[in-house]
Structures are given as C-alpha cells and as structure tokens.
C-alpha cells in the first residue's frame, strides 16, 4: 500500500495544509487565534486565478498573498486593535471571503463558480533528491510551491526559535504584559503574526488554483483551512511538528481517495482521521498539547 506514488499524492495533499498551518503557527504563537484561515485560503485561490489569468503565475501568487494579507489585516484590526472576540471575527471573515469571491468571480469571469483556465509555474525536478530511486517519484516535476512550502519549515523554525522577531513574537503570545514592560510593541508583533498567516494561507489557495487544477472552482478549499489549524495544534504549535502533522493528514486524505468500492472502512471514516487525531492530541491521549499562554486573549495595558 505504501508506494512512492501514494507518498507523492500525500505530499501534494499536504502542501496546502502545510502552508496554511505554518501560517497558523505564526499567528497563534503571537497569541491570536485565526479561524479565518479558511477564508484567507478561499480569497487566495480566487485572486490567484485573477492574477495568473491576466498577468501570469507570479502575479497570481502576488495577488493571492495580498488578498490573504488584506483579510488578515481586517482580522488584526478587529481583534488586536479593538480586541473583539477572535473567533467571532474569524467566522465573519470566512463568510465574507465566500461571498466576495463568488461575487468578484461573477464580475470578472462572468460566472460565480469557476474562473477561466489559468496556468501555473513550470514543474521542476529537485536536483539531488530526484535522482534517488525511491524518492524519484516524489521529487520529479513537482510545483515550485511544494518545494517552497517544505523549505519554509526549517526557515520558520529558525525564525521562531532563533531570531529577534521570533523571540518577540513568542513573547507577546506568552505574556503580552511582560513584553510590554520591556518596550516590545505588542500590537505590531501581533499584526505581523496574523498578516504572515494570511499571506501563507493565500499562497496555499494559489497552490490549489494554479498548480493543482489550473482553475479556480468555488469551494475548492473544502475546509482545508480548518484542517490546517488542526495540523498546527497536532504539531504542538511548532513548524516541525506542523510538518509531520500536515504530512500525516495529507496521507490520510490520499488514503481516503484510494479506499474505493472495495475497502473495508468506508472512506467517510478515513476522512474523519485528521479531526479525530486532533481531538486525541488535545485530550492528551497522543501527546500533551501546550498552546501559547496568552493565545486568544486580547491585550490592553490598563487591564495589566
């Protein structure tokens, strides 16, 4: 069952989850819960089609990032500046993203549910890896975005663990008051975290549109934004952990596609795996989850 082909499929399925989940790590480590990731993926997938259709893949990515960032900016303003409930804001943004994308698609492409065909980046081979027999299938003509996503893991791990930015990001997520007393701009850090998450979610959407199917189709994110949150939790709020979790979830999805007629467990149950695993993690059955201490709490100095 565990063929290279299955792994390749798992990887493709994992990438959008991974990109968004890494974003989730940034926003959550900064202490802001971002349920709106699903919506940010949606606008990403749509705007990528616009950018790519009129100006080519690079603009596609750019548009996707900007769109995601824009939604994230709204989330920051409402939750960080005004301190409204982070979940509420996220929920509202998801509805907005859905409606706005359908509407704009109608205006721009003349149909609410699909864009025109767009073409993505040229697939590439990863130098060394693509020569290794077993990995060949995994690393020959794959999307540059896949590679970007994988590279982002160590980079993000480095940023979060070893850079000034990362340290301060984690600080405002753990104890904003303490960070504040040390002259760290809590709001700025949180804005940064949220907006990074928006950009990455946007890229994830772009990946679906440009690289995977060559077309934007309404609802093509299929709730991957939520799975990404699950992956982030399952990965224990760490980039590396998120990688493992995303691959695991991607694997589950790839598996569910192969559980056709004949399989013993109905594929609906295989579809549940990511969610059940996440619950298990949160419950401490698999391993103890340790969310950032101040995650989900608005900060304003007077209550400090």
């Amino acid at each position, binding site marked *: 069952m565990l063929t290279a082909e299955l792994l390749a499929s798992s990887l493709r399925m994992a990438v959008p989850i991974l990109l968004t989940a890494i974003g989730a790590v940034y926003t959550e480590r900064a202490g802001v819960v971002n349920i709106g990731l699903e919506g940010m993926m949606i606008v990403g997938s749509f705007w990528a089609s616009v950018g790519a259709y009129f100006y080519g893949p690079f603009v596609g990515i750019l548009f996707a990032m900007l769109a995601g960032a824009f939604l994230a900016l709204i989330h920051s303003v409402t939750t960080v500046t005004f301190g409204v409930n982070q979940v509420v804001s996220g929920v509202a943004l998801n509805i907005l993203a859905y409606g706005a994308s359908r509407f704009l698609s109608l205006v721009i492409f003349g149909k609410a549910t699909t864009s025109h065909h767009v073409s993505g980046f040229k697939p590439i081979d990863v130098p060394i890896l693509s020569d290794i027999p077993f990995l060949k299938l995994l690393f020959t003509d794959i999307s540059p975005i896949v590679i970007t996503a994988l590279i982002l893991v160590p980079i993000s791990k480095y940023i979060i663990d070893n850079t000034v930015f990362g340290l301060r990001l984690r600080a405002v997520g753990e104890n904003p008051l303490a960070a504040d*007393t040390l002259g760290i701009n809590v709001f700025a850090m949180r804005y940064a975290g949220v907006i990074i998450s928006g950009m990455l979610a946007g890229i994830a959407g772009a990946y679906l549109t440009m690289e995977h199917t060559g077309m934007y189709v309404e609802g093509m994110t299929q709730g991957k934004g939520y799975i990404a949150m699950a992956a982030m939790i399952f990965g224990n709020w760490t980039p590396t952990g998120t990688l493992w979790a995303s691959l695991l979830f991607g694997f589950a999805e790839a598996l569910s596609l192969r559980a056709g007629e004949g399989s013993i467990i109905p594929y609906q149950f295989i579809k549940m795996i990511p969610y059940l695993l996440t619950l298990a993690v949160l419950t401490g059955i698999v391993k103890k989850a340790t969310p950032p201490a101040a995650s989900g709490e608005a900060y304003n100095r007077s209550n400090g």
Partner: protein
Amino acid sequence: MEEAVVLKNITKRFPGIVANDRINLQIQKGEIHAIVGENGAGKSTLMKILAGLYQPDEGEIYIFGKKERISSPNKAIELKIGMVHQHFMLIDRFTVLENIILGAEKKKGVAIDKKTCRQTIKKLLDLYNFNLDLDAKLENISVGHAQRVEIIKVLYRGADILVLDEPTAVLAPQEVDELFVNLRRLKEEGKTIIFISHKLDEVLNIADNITVLRRGKAVGTVSADSVTKEELAKMMVGKPVLMKLDKAAAEKSDVKLSLHNIVMKGNGGKNSLNGVSLEVCGGEIYGIVGVEGNGQKELAEAIIGLRQDYQGEIKVCGKPIHGLSIKQIRDSGVAFIPEDRHRQGLVLPMKVWENSILGFHRKDKFKKGMFIDIKKAEEFTLNNVKEFSIMISSIHQEIEGLSGGNQQKVILSRELSQEPEVILAAQPTRGLDIGAMEFVHRQLLQKRQEGKAVLLISADLEEVLSLADRVGVIFDGEIVAEFAPEEKTLEDIGVYMLGAHRKAGESA
C-alpha cells in the same frame, strides 16, 4: 549632589480611589531610597508611573534634572530606569537567557547573537556573583532565582535607576541578606536604587533615606539613621487608630473553628502550610499576621474548602469539614471575605442586588417556585444597603461602577447577613479609605460581640493589633508565635514575622 529622580505633585486616580495624591519626592543619585507604606498606600502605582506603565493624571517628573514625559516602558528604558515588579514580569516558557535579553537582544543580522548575549550576562553575573542557570526554563526555577533574573534583566539594559517593588515579600531571610549584599554592591557601582517595602527593619537596614506613603499621600522623607522604627510605624499608620477604644470586652464561648496540624504541599518541594494548629472561640477575633506568601492565602483556601489537598483536621463548630464542598462548608456557618474582591468576591458585570445574593441564590428565602424571588432579593439588598450605608445610585447598577469601599461593603453585608458562626476575613480592608476601613472594623467587632468567631488575616499590623484578642504570627506555613496584642511591641512582632527565633514567646 545630583538628584536622580524628582517627582512634583504626582497624582494618579483609579476608579473609586486616589492612588497617588500630589506626591513630591527627591531621590539622590547613588542612594538607596526606601518607600514604605501599608498595603494600598500607592507605592506600586507611583513606581509604575516612573516605569512608564501608568501615566500620571497630574504632576511632573525630572530625571537627572531634566523634565521628562515617561510615555512608555521604552521611554523609561531609554532614561535608564529599570523596574523589578512586585508581580514578576517573566515568561514561564522561556529560558532564563531569553527572559533577560527579551527586548534588548544583541543581534547578528536578523538572528539573536546568543553568544554575545551570554557573555554580557556572564559578566554581570560574575560582577554581582549571582549564580543562575541561563538555559533553565523559568517555570523550573525558584522564586528567589526568578527575582535575580528580574534584577539582571534590569542591569542588562544598563539601568542606572533601579526600582524594586517589595523584593523581599517573597524571599526567605537568608535570600534577603544576599539581596542586600547585592544592592549595596550596586550602590557602590553608582546605581540609584528605589526600594519598596512595608517592613521597617529591612528598610532601616538597607536604606539611606526613607519616604513614607500613607493612603496615597507622601507623609514625609527621613534619613534612615535619624529615625526609629516606632517613629516610622507611627508615620505609616498615622495617629493611633480611634476605634481601639470602643472595643468592649466580649465573653469567649466555646471553640467554633479549630485547625489541627494542617499540612499542605506548596510548589518547589517546601510546604506552604507546615502543621498549622489554632483555635478560635466564639466572641473572639483571632488575628494572623505575617509577611505575604507565608501561607496566609493557603490557610484561608483550606478553611473555605477551595483547596482539599491538605492533611490534618479542620472543624467548624465541632464538625470536621475536610472533603465537604465549598457550599456545604458555607452552609455549615462559615462566611468568607476574600482578599481579592474583584477576582474572588464579586461578579463585576452583574447587578448590585445579584451580587448581594451570590452563593445564597438557591436559598429558599430567595426562591419563588422555580424562579428567584426578585422582590425578596431586592428587599434584602435594599436592607443591606441601608444597614451598611452603601453608596449607590440603584441596586440595579452593575457593581463594577461602585468604589472599592462600597464594593467591599456589599461583600461584607452579603457574608455577614447569613448569620455565620465563623467569619473568615482575608485582607478585609485592603485598599479601602479610612471611612470604609473603620466601618469594616466595627462590623467585625460587632460580630465578636454577638459571640461569633472571627479569623482575621491581614498584612496590616495596626489593624490586627487593634482588633484581635489573640494574634498568631505565621511564618513559612507555621504559627511561630501566639500572644495577646498588648503583650508585644511592633518590633517584637516584626522579628517573629521575619522568622528569627521562631517558637519564641508563649507559642501555640
């Protein structure tokens, strides 16, 4: 000689209270300047203003002669002012190193230059021969070490003016001594140190000059070697409190509350309660004094049933209560006035009348069928409001809007109106103005007349001495001495509180 800090007419108001009232203060460069005052005197507030956390409503600040607006913590750091907060500002999940450098990281490109940081810190550690494991996660180190981290944090930022807010409140005596050695060395280095405390011996020991705050006002600055502890105490508390007089004799009845050898684990291996035994009779006020964090909180929580993880036996009116729910304990006749009224005593967004039946809302007298009998509850509240002369616009007002004193009165009225046999009062007057304070005191005395048992836990020595029939000094989770108030002077008690010759005197 140059003045490091000059405060002119600093005023800071909080809802219902003037925390700092036109405070003037001069601090010379290179001195250790102590600020003393009772709880709620306004010490922390004043220092938070200096650290840029609060903005004063009025007044001017001069740092090294220059007029400054300390608009933010950043500004304070620029001005080389560093503060060690009463409640530590540390991040549990960070390492010691990360905690120290946070916000003042030495960079190599975008990355943190951990190596240079480490060296810089090592230098400081050696200079003041602190020992600290820089790679330990903060959640795993002791309070004493955490405090060192805070101090190093400040030095690492090159602060010349150090503010330490009640640094000793959490320290064991020998740790206190170490701290003092370090402070003296810092002074030699030419640093200016502002040292906050309400412990007189300490202050006299370490400080050059002492400023006394009382109820938000600066009542004077004296030099340490020209003042005695008595004089200081007098300045702190103000003129001897009147109500001492109308404390009529009440005849003690039988034991209503008894604790037998209570032991409770604390964090860091050592017990927070270490075999506490005491008895409170009806018609008696038993006062517990001690340095904060010596087990007062735990004691109260054990009695009210908030914590069950203790050995030993607690009896209320002869009945053991270990394992009973909080509700059951309350029903068995225990009233509780918690030390933090906002967090533990009230539901701020709810109405006055709702708060005044909190915990008793299921009592039959407040029920009509399946509903709460609003009418009864309102009558009840209005009655309390009259009896306790609570100042409110309406009992349908959210209790948030009330001043601290009136909020405390609501709690008091609620707890005392249920005819309790045992009254457990923790810091009942913290942060109250004199009027409210006197009122609370009179209420407690009245209950005493009525033959109830009152256990009064307070950090306010004067309060305890003026109210209690018997006083127990708690240190390290033990009652180290027990005596009648008139038997001991302030300094004797201070000595017990600091744990020197424990079990001295006619101990329990």
